[in-house]
């Protein structure tokens, strides 16, 4: 479960990147945070993961304050970063192995790693290849594998579909559904409206650091999500 109360972030340069965000994502729910570049999506994730300190407000993971006990909250989150360079000199399996061990999964075998890599859709012949030879999409798959192998109750993804081909994106949808069905809370930042329509239980639209609209699944299926989203974007121009 992810929760924020009045979460606000003003950067040192005075930029208000997030303004009083109140949000609660329960286990078994997929939440999509939509927003243009610079809307404050990554800032929200960074606050939830205690990578940055909030200016005002609190964030909770499974009910634990991320500022008071960050190390404890880290046990309950997986994360797919925006940039998935990973370690270029390591193979996909070695990257997975390193982060799995950091995540406390000490006794996984090579077969476990291969299964996970296969599950995220990486071809078999790439498992032992150095990551610096990978395309962005392939690295994103490894990044996803790293997040899934930790098997945490909350998964935060920062624009995970940006480098994926349609087939891989479809596979991602299937994987996330499976995770949700296992009762996990999924928080995904994206500007990929199609994926949101397909997968989201709830969608938030963020603009200039403010959550301007929150839509339940029934509502955005009834009304056209694309229309709503673009309308909000339009206001900027007006």
């Amino acid at each position, binding site marked *: 479960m992810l929760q924020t109360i009045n979460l606000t972030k003003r950067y040192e340069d005075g930029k208000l990147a997030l303004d009083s965000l109140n949000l609660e994502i329960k286990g078994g729910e997929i939440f999509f945070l939509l927003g243009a570049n610079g809307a404050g999506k990554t800032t929200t994730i960074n606050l939830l993961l205690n990578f940055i300190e909030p200016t005002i407000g609190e964030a909770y993971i499974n009910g634990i304050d991320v500022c008071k006990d960050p190390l404890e909250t*880290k046990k309950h*989150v997986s*994360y797919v970063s925006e940039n998935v*360079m990973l370690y270029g000199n*390591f193979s996909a399996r070695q990257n997975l192995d390193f*982060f799995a061990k*950091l995540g406390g999964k000490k006794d996984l075998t090579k077969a476990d790693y291969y299964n996970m890599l296969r599950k995220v859709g990486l071809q078999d012949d790439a498992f032992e290849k150095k990551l610096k030879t990978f395309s962005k999409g392939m690295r994103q798959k490894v990044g996803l594998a790293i997040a899934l192998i930790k098997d945490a109750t909350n998964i935060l993804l920062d624009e995970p579909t940006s480098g994926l081909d349609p087939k891989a994106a479809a596979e991602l949808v299937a994987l996330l559904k499976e995770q949700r069905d296992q009762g996990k809370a999924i928080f995904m930042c994206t500007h990929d409206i199609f994926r949101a329509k397909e997968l989201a239980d709830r969608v938030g639209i963020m603009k200039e650091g403010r959550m301007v609209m929150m839509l339940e699944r029934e509502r955005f299926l009834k009304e056209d999500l694309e229309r709503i989203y673009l309308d909000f974007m339009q206001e900027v121009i007006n």
Partner: protein
Amino acid sequence: MVWQISKKDFLNNIITSRFIISCFICLLVIPFAIYINIYNYENEKKVYETEKDRIEQELKNVKVYSFYRPEILREPEPLSIFCSGIIENIGNSIKIKFKEKPMFMDRNTQERENPLLSSFFNIDFISIIAILLSLIALIFSYDAFIKERTDCTLKLMLINSISKTKVYIGKFFGITLTILPILFICYTLSILLIVINPNISFGVSEWGRILLLFFISIFYFMVFVALGFFLSVVIRNSVSSIIISLLLWILFLFIVPNVNIYIAEFYVKPEKLALLDYEFQKIDDDYLKHSQTFEKKLQVPSYPIVSSGPNDDGGWQVTRTSIECIEYYHKLAKFQTNILLENASKKEKLQTQHIANLIKQANLARWISCISPAEIFKHSSTSVCFTDANSYWNFMKQVQEYYESFIKSILKDEIINSLQFVTPITKENILTADEIISQASNGKYKTIDEANIAQQSLGIIRKAIYTDNKFPKLDVNYYSNIDFNKFPSFSYPKYGVEKAITNSLTYLGILVLMLLILLAITIFKVRVYKI
């Protein structure tokens, strides 16, 4: 978890081109440096052996006490192979003289044939380690944090229950572990070159001290790893970080070691050696005047001097002559010896002043240079290899103590007041002038005065000694060398590992302190590091 990160960094680094190029350069440069220094050491040893033989030969010709001037040889230091220190600037032998307390080694037998080459060849193992390892350490660490941040792997690590401090410590040891094999290769390679050389055999002290050098080298490169890490934490982009790293590297490795000397020379100005020499010359001239007036006061014996040899340090060897003559020179020699020793203590005041200034200057230069970890490393290495200024002064102190005890033994009644001081002719073989002339003239003249009046003495005695060889027992060749057991002998203690440890402890302390300070401020910065 810290270990996981160390392992990751180690494995990630050793397959990079940085690592392979570093190893390659070490493999290329180290054998070359070691080879040259082994060659130098072997040469030094050869010189030492021939010098030892020469001194032994010379001692056989010392047949009167006043001629004995012990010569002290400094044994070549085996670990100069690793670190030549100031060895190249100082001589390896010194002759003890009455007229001057020994201050510096006399001759420099290791001087190269071509003085223009000297600076080129000064590169030794430790200087290479100092230059290469610091550079390698910086190259591995300058972007350690920056790269993890820009690649988002830092975030992926911190998503687990691990603090930034632990990530830092893990990475720090990871890079330390990466450089360790390079250092290890350097040492194994040089040890190998030493072991396969049949002319060099190292004892426990040498192996122990090499091990100590190895440990010091580890701390040394760790300081640079810590420095690179510090930069990678406070600087946000890798280009600025590498530029600042390289500037610091140049500052520590090349600027500080030169600037410190200029500063020291500016603030402490010892008297010029030429001035000192001038003062010494004045004292020596004084000695000549004194000794001439004393000689005039003495009653010259009527017996003509046939063979005697004064040297420049108040030594007299009087042979083929009579007791009167021997006693005359004995008096002169005693007088001269006393004057020389008096002068030596006059000079000592000047010397002490001069040396104190030199030491002050050297110390100032050394402490200034301690702002550079590379210089601290070199100081600690030279003190472990016993090739530093302090080891040299310790040696000279022993030589000076020896000088004192040698002079004391010379001034003993049985030495300076015995006729053996100036003549090899033993008591029972000494003849009076009258005995000599009567034997030489086959009884024609009973006394020397008779012969002198007839103006015959010189011719008769010359003929008897040189042509007829009538007085073999008055000849120096009849006698063997003096008994050297009457004098103290010089022995320089051989120091072991403990001495090396105590010598280098201060420097090692500073190095460790630097490391801890860097670690502490980096940890302080890491805790508030913006991801």
